[in-house]
């Protein structure tokens, strides 16, 4: 799965350029971001709509198996969503995209479900606000 950031003026930044070179998540111009798209092959699988108040969150969450029946393999979940400070309250919308294509949507991180546990926020992702 790959991502593409679409800006207010219609231009975009894809994770991979045509020459195979890669743009970084940190290259995204957040102040101009209107949509963040996760592609599965050529097809858009998930589109996150954003505005100035919503800060994009994106991670590739990997479970690497050290020992046991799945040793040497990894399971991957893509996290894409946003958070904003809405009148002092931290509001989140988090989409977890699984390898089989299904998507689970949460309104916050959950520590008691490992796949849905907190990320370590990048400075540009932070918005403050009281956690619900």
């Amino acid at each position, binding site marked *: 799965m790959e991502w593409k950031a679409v800006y207010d003026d219609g231009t975009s930044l894809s994770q991979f350029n045509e020459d195979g070179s890669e743009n970084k998540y940190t290259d995204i111009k957040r102040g101009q971001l209107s949509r963040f798209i996760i592609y599965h092959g050529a097809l858009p699988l998930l589109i996150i709509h954003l505005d100035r108040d919503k800060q994009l969150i994106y991670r590739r969450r990997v479970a690497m198996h050290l020992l046991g029946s799945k040793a040497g393999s990894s399971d991957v979940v893509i996290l894409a969503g946003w958070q904003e400070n809405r009148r002092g309250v931290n509001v989140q919308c988090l989409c977890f995209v699984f390898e089989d294509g299904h998507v689970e949507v949460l309104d916050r991180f959950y520590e008691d*479900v490992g796949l849905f546990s907190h990320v370590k926020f990048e400075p540009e992702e932070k918005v403050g606000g009281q956690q619900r």
Partner: protein
Amino acid sequence: MVATFNVMFDYGGSDGSPGNSQNVDGLGPPNIRFKTNDNPTIDENDPVPIVTGQTKRSYWKQIYLKCTGAPSVKCNNFKFYTDGGGFGTGITLNVAEQFPTKNHGSSSGYEVATGTPGDTGDEMVANHAGVTSKVDAFGKTQGSPLNGPSVSEDSNQIDAVDETTNYLVFQLDVADTAQPGNKDDEDLTIQYDEI
């Protein structure tokens, strides 16, 4: 690009300076064996004996991830968990709650595993300078993971080839209630976030 890692453990050598670094992919499956000797060989030698009235231990193992393909930006938020199963009555897989220092430039947290070959390993909390407490690894599940291994590379993140996590230290305890024989594999997992 997508990050890639090898699962490694160090053995031999001296404190702070391991003699060898072993990629577990080259061993199995099964690719890790807890035994009463400080070597990586997957064989029937040096099992942990079952002795009436005693608890015998494997030599401890110091496991870490080593980056073989760099991420686009970074990897962090490493967590360890198991399937919550276990190796059966009388057998406890312990994991240290501390993460002795291991990075691309230093193995200062490394301590040579010690004990009596074929009999027992020395207990890790009492004998490993970087370990002060331990928990049952199978009590650490996806919903209640161990928050580590930590990372002692620059900025406490992995962003380049050859960078590593700190050590996860494991030791198997075998009480006299255990049943003899090779045990089935159990699932041990490290989760991390990548951007």
